[in-house]
């Protein structure tokens, strides 16, 4: 195998349309370990991006020493990406792992034993429950726990405490995917699957730098674009990424809209479908609602008007629309360029609309992938450890709440369902004002990942709230906590997780966690025990002890819902591949595509939400929904484009946008501790267009100061591939937070503002200014292998 730092996607295995993607097994073992020295290989799936590649963990002498892809797995056919190969195991034996609990004593975090730490937590928790009730408690979790842990947390939070204040960092990456699916189809859940890449003629990538975010999925596309009868790619992205280059190479289009104008672009594409008669009128009439209203909303978005708003060429927009309108099988993928930007849900819903207008759904090659940013985000949504209720149940439907109450044997009023659940940014506001006095953060690092970093640091370090952090390392967030709990990580515990195309994998425990670290499941169970949560008959509320028992409890909770796991078991998941839900008696081997019969879960009794006004976020009531009689038809919904929240001004003339790099993940908690990944993208940088750089007198590597109304960072400049007027910064890099430390977190500059429907924060629309601080002593530390390559060396895609 080649060095996959330099050769990110590995060698090509081209294949033709409609044939299977060839197998290529990738493997990495620690230096000095030969394959025959491995004691055993343990079944798992990779947790370092949202793709969910099936893999086996190599174990030697009780240590995780490497990884290889599973040849028979439907997700990756044996491949792994650079992060999976080089970053999966080194963190596990890092010297700075947390091995004992810590409590804050006299302002200082000090090691202690578990009874002391849990005692402190329970004491505060019980006092607040007595004084203020469950609304004093908040939970902020991850996109990286296992299903069993999310479900346990959901039950203890919603039925034990009864707090509506539960969310995950999935709010920052994936909330819009869920919202868009719910608004269009009535419930969350991906209609298509990764195998649609094999069958499509055309792939549209909306705000999705797939080449860096999901490298294995990108190889699957590259293997088609380098094979016989390749698909045409269309890319929407303000940067000239590898995806954009490949779009041009395949005869497609790269549209680079001005940051914050995605919806105007989408309205323009939608109008073109109507204008040219690329609408399957019969299918639309039979299976959708709202076409006339959508048509009137997009009517004014002529290519010329869109060109003016978005700064794209009207002819290119027409060409992209023609490609969509005239291809037999289109696959669309969407990610943060849409989700974290202005009018996120409306723009993502517009992608669903295009497919619905042409009836391109529910058959091979006609897929929609409203992508996830994190590997277990789907489980957080399904299990209800975020704002949702378990099993995609509708919090506004008394019958759905009653089902949960019966399942858990509690009073339905215990289960918080009186209004829209509290989203992460609102939880932080309640923590800020002190009405939430107890906040439990697990496996995530909001001090780096949430917008407006200085505000988040202030909130978490304040005296008004007791903060518990449960993680692998003393992260930027853990340093601000009152109690820190050492958690076991991937490979040190057992559980299942589900990727974006609904494939469920079992990840088995390979080694013991270090010191006194415990699995997240055990920690939640210990809290539930100590709090003595009971059901209506006085029995313990949580009736399971092991991951497999938790999984079985979840299977029962999911039965009959769109995400039905009832036909799955740990035993079944020990087969050659992960399995896609729903898995039922009727579909024992899982389900490749949803909505093959064009019947959607929109009936009033079935749906996960009654929907929202895409412009304001106002909820549609049950009565209004019933009156529409959707009865299985999908919704076509639109909205007018509005200007972004913080337009450019004389003072702040540039648009700031953030994103990822291929070598790092999730504030570098794991990847920053893998030597090869750290060396590949060691430190923060800022990207400018050549034109802006020249105007500002900045050359490659100069240290620049970027300021927004909220803060500043200083970092070396990459004169790169971003469109003129935009400034790009990678969001992985944290700061030690020492006095006098130079700001280097991308989120020092971003705004506290969110999409009205998905409540996903905007990380991509802030105004900023840039000036040179001093000359650099070499190029910026940005990788030159992917989207952050210098403008001067822009080459073709491999």
């Amino acid at each position, binding site marked *: 195998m080649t060095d996959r730092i330099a050769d990110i996607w590995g060698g090509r295995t081209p294949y033709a349309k409609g044939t299977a993607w060839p197998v290529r097994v990738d493997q990495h073992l620690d230096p000095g370990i030969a394959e025959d020295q491995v004691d055993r290989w343990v079944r798992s799936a990779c947790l370092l991006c949202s793709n969910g590649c099936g893999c086996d963990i190599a174990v030697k002498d009780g240590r995780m020493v490497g990884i290889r892809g599973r040849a028979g797995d439907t997700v990756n056919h044996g491949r792994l990406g650079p992060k999976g190969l080089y970053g999966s195991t080194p963190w596990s034996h890092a010297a700075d792992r947390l091995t004992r609990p810590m409590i804050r004593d006299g302002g200082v975090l000090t090691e202690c034993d578990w009874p002391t730490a849990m005692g402190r937590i329970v004491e505060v928790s019980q006092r607040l429950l007595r004084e203020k009730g469950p*609304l004093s408690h908040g939970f902020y979790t991850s996109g990286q726990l296992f299903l069993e842990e999310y479900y346990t947390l959901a039950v203890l939070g919603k039925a034990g405490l009864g707090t509506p204040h539960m969310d995950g960092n999935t709010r920052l990456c994936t909330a819009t995917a869920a919202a868009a699916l719910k608004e269009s189809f009535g419930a969350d859940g991906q209609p298509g699957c990764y195998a649609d890449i094999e069958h499509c003629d055309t792939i549209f990538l909306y705000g999705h730098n797939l080449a860096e975010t999901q490298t294995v999925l990108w190889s699957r596309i590259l293997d088609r674009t380098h094979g016989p009868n390749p698909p045409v790619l269309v890319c929407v992205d303000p940067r000239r990424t590898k995806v954009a280059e490949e779009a041009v190479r395949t005869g497609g289009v790269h549209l680079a809209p001005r940051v914050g104008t995605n919806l105007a672009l989408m309205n323009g594409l939608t109008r073109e479908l109507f204008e040219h008669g690329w609408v399957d009128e019969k299918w639309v009439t039979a299976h959708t609602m709202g076409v006339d209203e959508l048509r009137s909303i997009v009517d004014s978005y002529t290519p010329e008007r869109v060109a003016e708003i978005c700064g794209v060429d009207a002819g290119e927009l027409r060409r992209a629309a023609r490609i969509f309108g005239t291809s037999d099988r289109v696959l669309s993928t969407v990610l943060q360029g849409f989700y974290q930007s202005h009018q996120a849900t409306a723009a993502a819903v517009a992608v669903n609309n295009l497919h619905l207008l042409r009836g391109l759904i529910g058959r091979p090659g006609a897929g929609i992938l409203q992508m996830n940013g994190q590997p277990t985000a789907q489980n957080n949504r399904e299990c209800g450890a975020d704002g949702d209720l378990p099993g995609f149940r509708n919090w506004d439907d008394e019958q759905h709440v009653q089902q949960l109450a019966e399942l858990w044997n509690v009073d339905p009023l215990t289960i918080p369902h009186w209004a*829209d659940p509290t989203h992460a940014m609102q939880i932080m506001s309640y923590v800020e*004002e002190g009405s939430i006095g107890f906040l439990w953060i697990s496996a995530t690092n909001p001090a780096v990942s949430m917008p407006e970093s200085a505000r988040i640091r202030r909130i978490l370090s304040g005296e008004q709230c007791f903060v518990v952090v449960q993680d692998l390392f003393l992260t930027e967030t853990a340093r601000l906590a009152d109690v820190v709990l050492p958690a076991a990580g991937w490979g040190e515990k057992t559980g299942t997780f589900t990727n974006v195309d609904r494939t469920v994998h079992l990840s088995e425990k390979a080694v013991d966690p270090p010191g006194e670290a415990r699995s997240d499941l055990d920690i939640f169970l210990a809290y539930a025990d100590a709090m003595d949560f009971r059901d209506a008959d006085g029995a313990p509320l949580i009736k399971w002890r092991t991951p497999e028992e938790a999984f079985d409890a979840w299977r029962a909770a999911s039965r009959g819902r769109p995400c039905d796991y009832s036909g799955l078991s740990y035993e079944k998941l020990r087969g050659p591949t992960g399995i896609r839900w729903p898995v039922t008696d009727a579909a024992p081997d899982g389900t490749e595509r949803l909505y093959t019969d064009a019947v959607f879960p929109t009936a009033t009794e079935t749906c996960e939400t009654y929907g929202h006004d895409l412009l*304001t976020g106002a909820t549609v009531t049950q009565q209004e929904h019933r009156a529409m009689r959707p009865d299985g038809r999908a919704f076509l919904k639109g909205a007018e484009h509005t200007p972004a929240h913080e337009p450019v001004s004389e003072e702040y003339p540039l648009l700031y946008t953030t994103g990822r790099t291929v070598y790092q993940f999730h504030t570098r908690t794991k990847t920053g501790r893998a030597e090869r990944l750290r060396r590949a993208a060691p430190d923060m940088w800022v990207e400018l267009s050549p034109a802006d750089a020249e105007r500002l007198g900045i050359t490659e590597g100069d240290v620049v100061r970027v300021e927004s109304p909220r803060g500043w960072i200083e970092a070396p400049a990459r004169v790169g591939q971003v469109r003129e007027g935009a400034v790009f910064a990678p969001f992985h890099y944290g700061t030690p937070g020492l006095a006098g430390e130079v700001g280097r977190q991308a989120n020092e500059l971003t705004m506290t503002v*969110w999409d009205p429907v998905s409540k996903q924060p905007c990380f991509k629309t802030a105004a900023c200014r840039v000036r040179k601080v001093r000359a650099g002593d070499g190029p910026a530390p940005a990788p030159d292998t992917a989207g952050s390559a210098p403008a001067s060396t822009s080459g073709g895609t491999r």
Partner: protein
Amino acid sequence: MNLVTYLGLAYHAEQTFADSLRTVGQGHAKHPDVLFTCQALAAMSDEHVERLTPIVQRYGASSGKDVKEPERLHADGLAEVRSGPVGLLRDLQDLHVLGTLVQTTWTVVFQAAQALRDDELIELCEHASGQNSRQLSWLNTRLKAAAPQSLIAA
């Protein structure tokens, strides 16, 4: 014709509603969803006022401002905001009351517009009523979300 009086009321009520939405948005700017949504909702009412102006003139007043309306129909807007979580709740509730005045005013005008077969006014009434429903729905949604925390835990 008494219709002109009601057109004046619609004009004033929408104007007052728009101004109050902006006041509440700015006053609670630390809640960004309140700030930005109130601005968007105010823009809807601005547009109604703009489209109503030529119709008011057609029915005999030089502008909406000149129409004298019965004293008891008048509603004061919000000149300043209250503070704190319960203050936000009360301000949203006041906006809802104003929005309801706007709603019933359009209902009344719509009836007359149909009787007069005034297509332009009918179209405006339908459009403004639809937008008004969105305004009220959002206020209701936000009130519901804020109520438990404000009344119990804050």
